[in-house]
């Protein structure tokens, strides 16, 4: 894989953690981590299944360009399929933590779009003509004291969660809510205090049950993330399976949204091509499976088989 072009405007850096923001931990972290998990077919299952990623119309030169263009992940990718999978997973990872991601479309020496470069975590301000990448205060000392970087609007590709999964802001609020309502952390703080026994009326079960209900309600649009390995609270096994399927559907919705946005970008860049993903259950199909399972047409095993990637 070639090195990044020199005409990238944004600055890549690892933001400092002392910005006062609450870290995403507990169940918030589980959700963020699980959103990209298995969102595309895994390598070993890809080889066994009918999963395919094609560029339409086929074009070898454009395929090679797109493979380089989408290199936003950690590993070199040598095929379009690997590059798209990696790109979707990386984007979903950003969605998981921030609900959105800004990519700079970096051009090569000829001024042609060559690579995508993700903007580091931090504020991005939109002005009438430009995007401003705001450099957090603690990090400015490492970047010649610069407060922001101005990037032309045409060079920024802003991706955000599909609307039916909430806005980036509401998603971040969801993560914080999940983090703060993780029952065990609060309980531990309470129970580990030396005078725990004199803490009048503390009811661990009530605390845990209330947290679980609040969390499940907050996760209504997503379903239950995979890290929940057993039914929550008093819920049934059916609810557990159905919520897993709902999470599969939400992931499929994210995947389809990212691919649609990518194709929109390709149209904007006037390439005349589109990426087509086949052989993987769509959100509509998963919704239909859930509906039919609810109607009693088949059971858990078949529903999970139908929706597995």
């Amino acid at each position, binding site marked *: 894989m070639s090195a990044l072009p020199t005409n990238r405007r944004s600055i890549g850096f690892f933001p400092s953690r002392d910005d006062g923001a609450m870290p995403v931990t507990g169940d918030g972290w589980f959700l963020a981590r699980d959103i990209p998990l298995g969102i595309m077919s895994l390598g070993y299952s890809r080889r066994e299944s009918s999963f395919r990623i094609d560029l339409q119309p086929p074009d070898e030169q454009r395929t090679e360009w797109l493979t380089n263009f989408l290199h936003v992940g950690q590993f070199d990718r040598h095929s379009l399929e690997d590059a798209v999978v990696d790109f979707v997973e990386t984007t979903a990872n950003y969605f998981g933590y921030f609900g959105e991601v800004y990519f700079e479309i970096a051009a090569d020496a000829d001024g042609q779009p060559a690579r995508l470069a993700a903007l580091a975590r931090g504020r991005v301000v939109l002005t009438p003509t430009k995007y401003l990448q705001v450099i957090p205060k603690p990090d400015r000392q490492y970047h010649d004291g610069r407060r922001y970087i101005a990037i032309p609007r045409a060079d920024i590709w802003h991706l955000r969660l599909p609307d039916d999964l909430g806005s980036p802001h509401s998603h971040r609020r969801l993560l914080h809510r999940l983090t703060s309502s993780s029952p065990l952390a609060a309980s531990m703080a309470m129970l580990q205090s030396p005078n725990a026994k004199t803490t009048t009326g503390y009811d661990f079960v009530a*605390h845990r049950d209330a947290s679980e209900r609040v969390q499940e309600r907050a996760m209504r649009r997503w379903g239950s993330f995979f890290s929940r390995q057993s039914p929550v609270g008093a819920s049934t096994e059916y609810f557990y399976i159905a919520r897993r399927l709902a999470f599969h559907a939400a992931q499929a919705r994210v995947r389809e949204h990212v691919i649609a946005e990518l194709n929109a970008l390709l149209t904007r860049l006037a390439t005349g091509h589109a990426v087509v993903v086949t052989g993987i259950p769509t959100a509509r199909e998963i919704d239909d499976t859930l509906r039919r399972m609810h109607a009693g047409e088949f059971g858990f095993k078949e529903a999970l088989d139908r929706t597995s990637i």
Partner: protein
Amino acid sequence: MRTPFRSRYSPAVSLADRLITRFGAHRGLWRLRVRIRNARFGVSRSVFGISYSVEQKSGTATALPYLLRNAVLPVLIALALVVAMDLLNAPMAEQAKDWGWPAISAGTYDLLFQAVAATTGVFLALYFTAVATVAANVYVNVPHDIRALLVRDRLGNLYVSGVAFTIALSVLLLIAHALTGRAYWLAPPAIGLLAAFSIFAFIRLGQRAFYLADPTLLANTLAYDFGSWLKRSKAGGHQWRDPSFQQHYHRQARASATSLASLVAIADDQPHLRSGSLRQLTTVVVALLSGYLGLRDKIPTSSRWFGGRYEHKQWYLTSGTELDTATATATALQPATVPDVTWVEDMLLPPLVGLLEADLKHQNYEAAYDLLGKLAAVHSRLGERWAAPYGAGQVACITSLATKHLPREDLPEPLRPALIPGVWDSVAMLPLSLDLGFHTYVTRCPISQLSQKLLSGDWSEPRAPYAIGAPREVVATLEKIQAGREFERAVDAPPATQTPNWYAREVALNSYEHAFQTQIIALVDLLTAWYPTVAQTLIGAKQPDAAGAVLSRGLEAAWKLEAHLDDWEAIAAALRDGPLLIELRRPQWDWSAIREKVSKMQTELLRQLADLIPLHAARERSADMPDYLGEAVHRVGEASFSALVANDAELFCHLFPTYFVGVLAVVDRIREQAADWDAQQAATAMAEPVADLMDISGFALILSELHGNPQLWEPCETRWSQYLQGGDGARRLAIVAALHNHQRHLFALTPRGTGRARWQMRVGELLTALPRGPSSSPFDPGQVEHPSALIRRIAPRGDLLGGLTHDASDLFVVRFVRTLVGADQLDFGVADWVIEALTEGEDEDDEEDKP
């Protein structure tokens, strides 16, 4: 699934949940929560106190009609007199004027009320004196809770209230008159009415005071109290889901049950109560238990009504959250509290069993018999509520008592010996009652109906799990479904993720199947082990009548169990009907093993029955006692025939010798009774058992040939030879010939003829089913293909009338008895053509049969 964008929280998530989640780490929240909870509990408690008080008052008011019924007539008469006096008042006033009487004075008015107050006060004092006397004499040695019942007597309380009110009103009227100087015209008649009521009601109450000497009469009050707490604990009762209220109901009901148990113990202790009173008391306790068992599954399975016992958890089998908490706080795992489901049964059954023990100990068999009858009703209800394992424990307890206390042969005979087998018969009814109760429930509530209810129920409704009358295990599953639905509603789950009814149906029916299997295994184990074991013990203790009673019930139980197994298998199949969508652990059924168990039990009981025949035969017949000898001989005869058909030589060899002895003993008994009968009638009665025996012997001959098993014939040949060829052989042979001859010339259908015809038809069917050779004409079914010439000779033709052409007893006579020394001179009543048919070519047959 696309879901519309919504506000942060829907109203489904409660404010409490949000506050706890948001401020859970602050102690203030939890302190506030406790205060709110206490305040809420205080309000609920006040509401409950008011409703309870109203209920008590209305309960007391129900005693009013009783008092009124007894007081109303005198009061009406008094009223009529007053009216009459009023009507006559004007002429009387005129008359009084004529006589010179003065007008009613204020002093008289006051005096009247003073007199009423004083008189009713005396009644009040008299009543309390009577109660105190009873309490001092009868209740001096009883626990306080029993004594307290006296004070709670509803009738007495109402009377005391009424009299106290009359006194108070009189006093107030006097005060008002003293202060204002005004006399109310309505006051004298009103006070007069109340005073009249007090006087006449006291007569009834005074009579009743004598009955207070019998504390068992107070049992109804306790049963009423228990029922009222039970009613509140049921789904839909006041605060039925609140653990504090559940605990309270449990405590109160436990107090009532404890008092009831004490009452039984007191009644058992005091000889003057050990008759009608005790019987009435046990009726109340049994009715309460039966009623309770009927309603028990309408109480939440984890309700504190059931109290609780601790069950310690294991560190390596505990949930992660609890493990983390215990690790982080360096504390032990908290033990789990499991409901003590049988606490009521455990409190009320032991006193009854204790009573039974006392009855048996004091040889009060009639009372024991009566009590066992009542206990059978409780066992039936236990079976109905799927408590067979618990019922089995009770049966074992009662059996050990009966074995310990019922007299052995070495003890003097009781006055009415028939009662002992009667008591054993009642004990033997207990396991059967469990089975019948269970079977009644499962057949009364078809699976299709249950399935439909499960599919159509609204499982988010808190009372729904208790409404369908399902067994406890299914209720527990439905409670989980209901809790799940409640959770889903709280988290505002989208419709497709809400637990559907097909899921509720499938998991509930799976629970049903598991519990169903547990009950069946418990019942089959109990029944197949109890009857043979107890019968063997009784045979060993030389109690043939008691053993006969147990075996009789045992055979009934085996027959019923066999029939029930067909129903149960159909139910188990119905439980798997419909699409099975979830992978659940489902019970494995081995119906053939269960049937084999029942069949073995039946065979064992028949063996024991056969072993009993000589013991029965050695005893004198008693009209008070059931005919155990006759029953045993009859059943062993039937079993011998079945063993022949099944080619079970080992069983037949065990049964036939005692059957032979039994038949002879029966004939002897009939002969003794028939001494003064008409000769024809007496001969017929005596010939019947002999005809059975000769038929069985004939069938042994036929079936030994059919099965190619000479062992089937050997016991017959040996027994008959010993009997007919001994010292008295010639006389016996003549009697047998005479009886057979008589029987063969009867034209009427005898009582046992139908049974023998059934045997004959069965053997005919077996022979008809044999393979046949080629047919020579349309009317010739072909020769039967069988190595035995006898079988080929007697096999039916196979046409529509196909059946044995010869009687088995004739065959037995012709082929065996007539070959004995001296028999050729006797007339056995076998027709010549039959003899010819059965002997024609016999030599060739024998030659042919030789290997």
